[in-house]
């Protein structure tokens, strides 16, 4: 991977920045920033409504993004719903599917979910007097016997593709295939927030019914997310919010909604965000998702090796040890230090990492970890960043113990 830092203007302003928090949000490359800027400067009109050139240009670019994102994940444009983020995509599903099911709703999820793929389901089963089954993980950080947690009553399997703490890449194509074979009616929802930016995503090969991800984690603008759904399922799903843009006709007596995806995009959307996202997808495709995944795995492998070398038995790495089954996320603890202190001292050396639960408290409870420190790698990181991280940690540990 060639050095891409020059494409990211933030490094011009902070040349010493060691950014290791891409799991939270990715930095933005020039083409994305330029595209957003261009919308606001050259054609910042509303979409769909205007019978004038700049509105038509905005509509064209907005719908072009839908096609590009569809292609990015191997889906069809009419299966792409633009939302605010992964969280909103998942809440939209919980609200819509909740209305469709009759009786108690049994849902299966995993212990490694981000709160956004846990809380909507926890609330839904509580409201509907259903049951939430949780797939656990083993010592290796992999899911244990996922099929055993699904039964004929299970309506939904909500599962993450890549853990935002452990870095585990779940073998979803295989899990989904087996689950669908045994339970053809089971709705499978994939949280791809940590997958879409880092590995080649093909919704059909995956076999899921719905896939949710965020724009900002894949170099795109904040405030824009994606929900992909199988066309037939989206068509049957009731709209999430009601308002402008999502109706075919409205009268005092009766309202007819537009077909999907537009029925799920009520009100003026984040037009600049959607348009900016197409450049993010293009940028990633130009590099190649396989290459990106490989690069991150390499950095994670070096980081894990160096952490062990530097801190020996004092370091506890959460998640899989083998690099081929993980993504570029490394969460860990160092004995006798608190993650917050380490992160704070690293910050004094311009190293950005994350400390805490990373929106995965059930997982930390399961692992009996009070909190953890997380370093995550993306396309603009290199081996020098890993070296700086280790040196920074050594310094921090020396100060604290």
């Amino acid at each position, binding site marked *: 991977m060639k050095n891409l830092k020059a494409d990211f203007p933030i490094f011009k302003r902070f040349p010493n920045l060691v950014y290791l928090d891409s799991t939270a949000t990715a930095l933005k490359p020039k083409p994305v920033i330029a595209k957003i800027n261009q919308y606001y400067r050259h054609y910042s009109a509303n979409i769909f409504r205007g019978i004038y050139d700049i509105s038509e240009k905005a509509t064209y670019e907005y719908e072009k993004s839908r096609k590009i994102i569809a292609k990015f994940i191997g889906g069809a444009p009419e299966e792409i719903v633009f939302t605010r983020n992964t969280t909103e995509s998942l809440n939209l599903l919980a609200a819509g599917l909740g209305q469709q099911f009759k009786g108690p709703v049994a849902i299966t999820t995993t212990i490694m979910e981000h709160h956004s793929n846990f809380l909507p389901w926890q609330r839904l089963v509580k409201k509907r007097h259903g049951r939430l089954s949780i797939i656990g993980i083993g010592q290796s950080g992999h899911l244990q016997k996922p099929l055993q947690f699904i039964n004929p009553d299970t309506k939904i399997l909500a599962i993450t593709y890549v853990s935002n703490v452990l870095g585990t890449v779940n073998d979803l194509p295989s899990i989904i295939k087996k689950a669908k074979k045994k339970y053809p009616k089971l709705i499978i929802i994939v949280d791809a927030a940590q997958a879409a930016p880092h590995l080649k995503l093909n919704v059909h090969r995956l076999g899921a019914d719905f896939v949710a991800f965020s724009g900002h984690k894949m170099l795109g603008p904040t405030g824009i997310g994606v929900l992909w759904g199988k066309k037939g399922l989206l068509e049957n799903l009731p709209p999430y919010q009601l308002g402008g843009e999502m109706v075919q006709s409205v009268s005092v007596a009766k309202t007819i909604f537009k077909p999907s995806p537009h029925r799920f995009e009520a009100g003026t959307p984040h037009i600049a965000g959607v348009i900016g996202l197409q450049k993010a997808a293009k940028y990633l495709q130009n590099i190649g998702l396989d290459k990106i995944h490989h690069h991150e795995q390499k950095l994670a492998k070096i980081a894990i090796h160096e952490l062990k070398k530097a801190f020996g038995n004092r370091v506890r790495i959460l998640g899989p040890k083998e690099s081929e089954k993980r993504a570029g996320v490394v969460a860990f603890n160092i004995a006798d230090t*608190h993650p*917050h*202190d380490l992160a*704070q001292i690293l910050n*004094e050396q311009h190293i950005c990492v994350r400390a805490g639960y990373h929106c995965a408290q059930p997982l930390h409870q399961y692992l009996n970890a*009070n909190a953890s420190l997380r370093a995550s790698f993306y396309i603009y990181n290199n081996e020098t960043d890993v070296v700086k991280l280790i040196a920074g940690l050594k310094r921090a540990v020396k*100060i*604290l113990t």
Partner: protein
Amino acid sequence: MDSLYKSIILKNYRHPQNFGRLKNPDKTVQANNEHCGDRITLDVKLKNGRLKDIRFWSQGCAISVASASILTQAVKGKTTAEIFRLNKNFVLKKLGIKLSPNRLKCALLPLEAIQKALC
């Protein structure tokens, strides 16, 4: 470098005062910082409206442990009314550091716990 990890913080973190549990406390309280997982348990003994003794137990970060160590020393012997008058500024002055909003929560957790114990 304007480090938060000044000697006063580190001294109190490595060797916290009033650390541990009290025998037969009048009251025990817990306070959590859900953001980072800091958790503090506080035992207090009161006599004639004054805080007679106090101990804390925590698995927190350096800022929260140091703050607990320094604050528990500062409040011992004070009246309940005096302790309720203590605020953010008092804690920061005692610690002698400036904190970002995120870390402020760590520093203020012990005060929150102490005031909760006296309710």
